[in-house]
């Protein structure tokens, strides 16, 4: 079962009805947990659920152990000066580190094993017993997402930025929460746990907001992304057969396809959570309106970027050993060089790891290096760019310059996507070569462009869909769309809702026997 499969609709309808009927918080938590477990078993199987529950037990035990050690510190630090307390804390931290590392060894070790296994083409198994055979890996649904959230949760406790959860049931509800288990957003458990502890009762407005957001998500995924995928899939699966404009169109469309797919899924899951009164973190904020690559990555897959910033970039940049190196580098080469060094080295490591998180093939390694280089150069050369625009008297606030920046961001994203979209660097080479081999503009006029999965009418639907996403993003940057809609007259509101349902029913891509296509980011 995926969020856009036929089984999901009755599952969610029954679940929501039961949930909304529950009079108390504990009962609502029980319904959510039951929903989580049913969803996970139907989507991934019982063996995968066993791994997920096992992980939750490890996370809970490690969190409690660290919390218990720190409670000793809290009692002992009474009456000490801040300096003495800091010194005392380092001793407690050493003890807590053992539990942290043990939990990391188990949960991160499992993730690394699956990643390395994928690199060596290990066979995937769906059974725990299958792991006993050599050369096999088991990849539980949402493994990367819940592992990252769990690591963040434990590190927050270790750094005393969050308190450990004492109620295992609540932690299990939060960890297995079906709206975010498949492809995020990568939640902060400490924030979510507070919400699960105070689940609100029924609210007409909240349920309407949630359902309308889900509807928009389904349209983005099933009407737009899956439609574009028919054409891009045909081109990227055999790039040798295409050239010039055909490839140019596919690479330009694949950026919008991924955006519609991933942000569509986020609309579905954030909307689903909203109906229950849970606010999940936003993962997108009009990313293609960004002025540069660094801003783009603050607005695209926001929770992954925030995770890497908080748990890799900052700890790495702040580590005593690296800080000492930075200080000596700064003394030798001056402030400017020191600033560049202290930010560029951790950024390079973060981008290499971000690439490896997305996939273990060389194409993803190159993808990570590409983005790391673009962002580091953008940061390092920012003062020079500023001088240049001042010298050339360019109005950086003008509409023309903003349009140039947005187009540049889109093209940077498209180039990055080209590295991985065929599944290999060889495929990337074929795309680049094919792009310049011949122009093939005639395919637009002789109709042959419309023989690769998408006919002319479906192309038109896809283009209208893309325009709708752009308009929605433009409006979304200025106002809260659903709130504004909710203030409109009843007839207009329901015309929009019914219109959306009709669009979904008529133009949704269902495939044979409603074989719902998977979400792209579900694979991570």
């Amino acid at each position, binding site marked *: 079962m995926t969020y856009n499969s036929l089984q999901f609709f009755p599952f969610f309808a029954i679940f929501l009805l039961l949930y909304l009927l529950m009079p108390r918080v504990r009962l609502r938590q029980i319904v959510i947990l039951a929903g989580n477990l049913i969803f996970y078993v139907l989507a991934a199987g019982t063996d995968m659920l066993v791994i997920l529950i096992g992980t939750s037990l490890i996370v809970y035990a490690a969190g409690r152990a660290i919390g218990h050690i720190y409670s000793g510190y809290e009692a002992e630090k009474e009456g000490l000066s*801040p*300096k003495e307390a*800091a010194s005392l804390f380092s001793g407690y931290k050493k003890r807590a580190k053992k539990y942290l590392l043990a939990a990391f060894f188990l949960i991160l070790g499992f993730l690394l094993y699956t990643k390395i296994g994928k690199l060596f083409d290990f066979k995937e198994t769906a059974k725990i017993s299958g792991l006993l055979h050599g050369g096999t890996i088991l990849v539980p649904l949402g493994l990367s997402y819940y592992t990252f959230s769990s690591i963040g949760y434990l590190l927050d406790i270790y750094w005393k930025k969050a308190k450990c959860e004492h109620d295992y049931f609540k932690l299990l509800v939060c960890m297995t929460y079906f709206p975010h288990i498949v492809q995020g957003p990568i939640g902060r458990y400490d924030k979510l746990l507070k919400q699960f502890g105070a689940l609100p009762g029924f609210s007409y407005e909240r349920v309407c907001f949630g359902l309308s957001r889900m509807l928009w998500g389904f349209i983005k995924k099933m009407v737009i992304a899956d439609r574009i995928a028919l054409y891009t899939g045909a081109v990227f699966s055999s790039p040798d057969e295409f050239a010039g404009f055909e490839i140019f169109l596919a690479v330009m469309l694949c950026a919008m396809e991924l955006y519609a797919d991933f942000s569509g899924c986020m609309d579905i899951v954030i909307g689903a959570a909203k109906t229950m009164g849970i606010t999940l973190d936003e993962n997108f904020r009009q990313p293609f309106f960004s002025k540069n690559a660094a801003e783009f990555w603050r607005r695209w897959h926001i929770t992954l970027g925030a995770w890497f910033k908080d748990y890799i970039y900052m700890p790495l940049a702040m580590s005593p050993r690296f*800080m*000492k190196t*930075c200080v000596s580098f*700064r003394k030798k080469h001056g402030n400017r060089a020191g600033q560049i060094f*202290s*930010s560029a080295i951790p950024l390079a490591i973060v981008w290499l790891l971000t690439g490896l998180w997305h996939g273990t093939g060389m194409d993803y390694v190159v993808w990570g290096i590409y983005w790391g280089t673009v962002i580091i150069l953008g940061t390092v050369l920012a003062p020079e760019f500023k001088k240049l625009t001042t010298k050339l008297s360019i109005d950086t606030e003008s509409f023309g310059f903003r349009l140039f920046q947005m187009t540049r961001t889109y093209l940077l994203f498209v180039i990055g996507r080209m590295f991985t979209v065929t599944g290999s660097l060889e495929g990337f080479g074929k795309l680049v070569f094919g792009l310049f081999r011949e122009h093939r503009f005639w395919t637009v006029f002789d109709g042959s462009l419309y023989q690769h999965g998408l006919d002319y009418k479906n192309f038109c639907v896809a283009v209208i869909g893309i325009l709708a996403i752009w308009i929605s993003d433009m409006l979304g940057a200025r106002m809260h769309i659903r709130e504004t809609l909710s203030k409109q007259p009843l007839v207009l509101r329901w015309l929009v809702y019914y219109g959306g349902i009709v669009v979904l029913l008529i133009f949704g891509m269902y495939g044979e026997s409603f074989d719902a296509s998977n979400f792209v980011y579900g694979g991570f």
Partner: protein
Amino acid sequence: MRNRVKQVLADNYPEIDFEASTELVDDGILDSLTMVGIISALSMEFGIVLPYEDILPENFNSIDAMVELLEKYI
């Protein structure tokens, strides 16, 4: 102490007005890259290493907050 911190910040980031806000991080005036640069500069000036658990937005929201943090370790 406050003047020393102010001088370090002015030397490294002359384009930022650190007195303009008491919510420097929360207002988005300081991003993570700038924070790393500031911590590196302060570490060099005062010869200390700040533990990661103290790298919180509230400790960098103003010059006074930074001074208070540094005084814990000097």
